[in-house]
Every structure is written in structure tokens, then in C-alpha cells.
């Protein structure tokens, strides 16, 4: 195991009890290593096992086979579970269903209260955490008055206050409007760059993956592909075969290529626009 790896899944398998007592295998011998400070996107369909994988990473679920290591701690060893959950924060899909406090400050305090942090120190950590997500003006606001994006930022602040090393977004943008999605993605990018927080973004929007360092594609409980966004999204046909889309720019380039127009590989829409314009000018 690499020294810099923060999170490691080693031959992990997991199954749910299905109806009429059958076992449904959702993860099959998954091997995955997440480097410290990286920004990883996990793409996959519903039922590909990506959410189960997330829950295994902070001991909400324990593996049936293999091991999950968080900063060297085995999640199956019960005594480390609170330390593991402090290290690995999780933002869930529904913004309403993860806010516990009746005000923003109470919600950010929740994790700290669980950790038994001293009240004076708590106050300071809440202020810092809210500042890091740009929500300091909403200290006393009631959560139901906030927009979806703001609620998710509060949820992230609640995790930041616990000083985590990893934040896992489990489809955290799925229920947001485009603006809220941008807000949240922009925020985690900043946290990754400035605070060195490792980000794992579990999503089914391929366009969210283009900003990450690594992309992991899950299919039917297995890691199908792993690599940089360029490496993964260059294999359009292979992704299509498992029913996954590619980022907009990649898709357009692919369609153009099939019509005989060759453009260099790009991930971002702006770059594509530039290449298309250049092509039109030089023709």
C-alpha cells in the first residue's frame, strides 16, 4: 500500500438480503485506493454499488469480504469507528433529511457535540466552518428557509467543523437545481485545492467528473474503469455499452468524429467551442 493513500478498499465485497431470502451481491472484490488530497469522481448507474461503496468508507456498512482501511484504520475493528467517521464526512442526496439542527449553527454544532468538543472551542470551529463554505451570514437562519444548494453547504460546514480528511458526496447534487449544483461543486473544488481535503464525488452526471483528478466507473458491483478523466472519457464506446453518458464536449466531439470531422480530445465545453471556431476559420 502506498504511503500517501488515505482510503483503501481491498477485495471488498458486500451483499444485501434480497426478497425471498436471496443474496444480492452489490460489490464484487472491489480494489480501490484513494490518494490523499485527490478529487475522485465515482460514476455509475443506480444499483452499480457506488452508494454502498460510500457507506463502506465510513463504517456505516462493514464489508463482508476484504478490508476497508481509512488512514490505516480497519473499519471492521469497532473501536475506531468514531475516529473513522470524524475522518470521513458524508453529504447525502436529500438536503432536507440530513439537517438535524433547528438553526444553522445548531446543525453545524451537531457533529462537534457528538465528539464532545468543549463549548468555547465549538463556537470558534462553527464560525470557521461556516466561513469556509461562505454561509457565515446565515448563522441563526432556520434550515427550511435556505435553498437546496445552501442546505448542502451547511451540511458540508457541519463536516468541515469536525476537521475531516475526506468528504464523500453521495449524489449530493442530484436533487439540486443547476445553480445549486454549481455552488456545491465550486465549493468542494475550493476545499480540495485550498484546504487539501480529499473529495470523493459519487454522481451519475458525467459533466461533474471533468474537474476531478481521477474517475472511477462502477458497473454491476465492479470497478469497470479507473483513470484520469481524459483516459476514461476517451473510451466513449465502452462507456456507452454499459449505458453511461460522457461529458457534453466529449459527446459532441465523438459525434463530429463519426461525421469525419476530427478535433483534438477535450473535456471542457469552452475548449470545444474554441476548437470548432478555429476549424471554421482555417477551412
Amino acid at each position, binding site marked *: 500500500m502506498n504511503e500517501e493513500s488515505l482510503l483503501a478498499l481491498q477485495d471488498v465485497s458486500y451483499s444485501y438480503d434480497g426478497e425471498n431470502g436471496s443474496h444480492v451481491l452489490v460489490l464484487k472484490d472491489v480494489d480501490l485506493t484513494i490518494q490523499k488530497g485527490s478529487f475522485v469522481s465515482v460514476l455509475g448507474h443506480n444499483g452499480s454499488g457506488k452508494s454502498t461503496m460510500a457507506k463502506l468508507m*465510513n463504517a*456505516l456498512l462493514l464489508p463482508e469480504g476484504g478490508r476497508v482501511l481509512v488512514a490505516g484504520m480497519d473499519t471492521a475493528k469497532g473501536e475506531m469507528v*468514531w475516529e473513522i*467517521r*470524524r475522518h470521513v*464526512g*458524508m453529504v*447525502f442526496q*436529500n438536503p*432536507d*433529511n*440530513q*439537517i*438535524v*439542527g*433547528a*438553526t444553522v*449553527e*445548531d446543525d453545524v*454544532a*451537531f*457533529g*462537534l*457535540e*457528538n*465528539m*464532545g*468538543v*468543549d*463549548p468555547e472551542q*465549538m*463556537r470558534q470551529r*462553527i464560525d470557521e466552518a461556516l466561513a469556509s463554505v461562505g454561509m457565515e451570514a446565515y448563522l441563526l437562519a*432556520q*434550515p*427550511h428557509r435556505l435553498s437546496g444548494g445552501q442546505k448542502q453547504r451547511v451540511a458540508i460546514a*457541519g*463536516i468541515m467543523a*469536525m476537521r475531516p480528511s475526506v468528504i464523500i458526496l453521495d449524489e449530493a447534487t442530484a436533487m439540486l437545481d443547476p445553480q445549486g449544483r454549481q455552488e456545491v461543486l465550486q465549493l468542494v473544488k475550493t476545499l480540495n485545492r485550498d484546504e487539501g481535503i480529499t473529495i470523493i464525488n459519487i454522481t451519475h452526471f458525467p459533466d461533474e467528473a471533468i474537474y476531478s483528478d481521477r474517475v472511477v466507473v462502477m458497473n454491476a458491483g465492479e470497478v469497470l474503469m479507473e483513470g484520469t478523466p481524459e483516459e476514461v472519457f476517451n473510451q466513449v464506446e465502452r462507456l456507452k455499452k454499459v449505458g453511461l453518458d460522457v461529458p457534453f464536449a466529449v459527446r459532441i466531439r465523438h459525434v463530429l468524429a463519426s461525421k469525419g470531422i476530427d478535433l483534438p480530445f477535450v473535456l471542457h465545453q469552452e475548449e470545444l467551442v474554441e476548437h470548432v471556431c478555429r476549424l471554421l476559420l482555417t477551412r
Partner: protein
Amino acid sequence: MLQNIAIGQYVPGHSFLHRADPRSKLLFIILFATLVFLANNALTYAVLIAFTLYAGLLSRLSLGYILKSLKPVWILIVFTIVLHIFMTKGGTVYFQWGWFTVEERGVQQAIFISFRLGLLVIISSLLTLTTSPIDLTEGLERLLGPFARIGVPVHDIALMMSIAIRFIPTLMEETDKIIKAQTARGANFTSGSLIKRAQNLIPIAIPLFVSAFRRAEDLALAMEARGYRGGVGRTRLHKLAFSWRDAGMAVAGVLLAITIGWWRA
């Protein structure tokens, strides 16, 4: 249509009553309620009324707003008055028409009991008007703290209350959405017989329950992910602290108790 419902009645502010510790407010209300039941003559009632008015002033809320809290109970008060005037007998007969009489004790009891009800409602509204639900829960948790030793799950009860408070607006919004969705499907909630209308509530209640259970499950997971493990070893952001205000309330309570005890018939 449901968005306008305020959670509780709390009106934010910085008055004496707002800043007093919720624990002392709760204890004071218990004392006050006892004294209201001990009062039995004009003098003691006058003292209690004067005191309640003073407490109202201390809250710096408008009198009209405080009196609005009587609205839900006014029928009960009127009913009590009528019942006492006609049914309680004794003393001078003021009015007679056949077997039907209005007598001195009846009128007196009508006045006393209606004031008793009114005072109880107003003083407890002063609590909910000046104390946020969170502070109230916290005050209750601390006051009930000693009972944890004999196995009462005080922390769990307080957490349940605060989560309930947190989810009231969320579920209100949800109800609103379900009503609209069912109306769009042709459900009719505004006409028909009472029984029919009650039946029509079923298509609102069932989806609401289903979603509430789903939310509860999600929330439990989110709480666990943030390291929740029950009340043991937990610290609190808000620390309740007694101040000179609470000492003042204690003195006022003692004086009030002595006065009522001295002057009651």
C-alpha cells in the same frame, strides 16, 4: 396556504423575559399555576392580575399580541362563565324568573374561574412567546436531568422534541405539495359532508407518513455518519447559565407566594 404557520409562537427579542433562563421560566410557571389555584378572593386575584400585566410589560411585546393567545380558549372561558352564572347557587339572589336564578356566588365564581383560566393561558403564552423552542427543549432537558438516573431517557426525549421542531416546517411544505398533487388528480378537500371530508384526508395522510418514515431513515443515517452515539459524552453548544434575572424571578416568586398565602381568604 400552510407556509404562514409559525413554529410555536416565539417572537425574537432581547427583553428581560427573553433573556431569562428557560429553566427559571418553567419553574416560575409551575409556581404561578399553583398560586392561581390558591387565590380565592378579589384581593389575591387583583395581585395576580397586576403581576401578569407587569410580566407582560417585561416581555416588551404589545398587549394586543399577548391577549391574542386567549383566542383559542375564549369559547371555553365563555362556557365556564355561563355555566357558573346559572348553576352555582348561594348568597343574594340578583335575578329570578321562575325556577331560574342568578345568585351572588355564581357571579363571583364565574368571574374568578374565567380569570383563573385567562391568567394561566396568558402566563404560559408569555413563556412560549419569549422562549425559542430550542431553548425550551434545552431547559426541559436540564430540568428533567435528575430523572435520567432513575432510567428516564431524558436525552432521547429532548432530542426527539428538537428534531420534531426542526421537521415541522419541512413536513408542512410536504403536506402542501401533497394537497396540490391530489387536488390536481381531482381530489376535493373543501366540500361534501364532514365524514366525506375526513375520508378525503386519507390520500394526504398516507403519502405524508410514507415520506416521514423515509426521512426518518435518512436522518438516522446522516446522524450516524456524523458520529452520533447517544447522550453519553456529548457536549452542548448552548450552555444555560443563571443570571441576575433568574435571581430576580426567584425573589418575585417568593414574594408573590407570601402575598397570596397571606391575603387569601
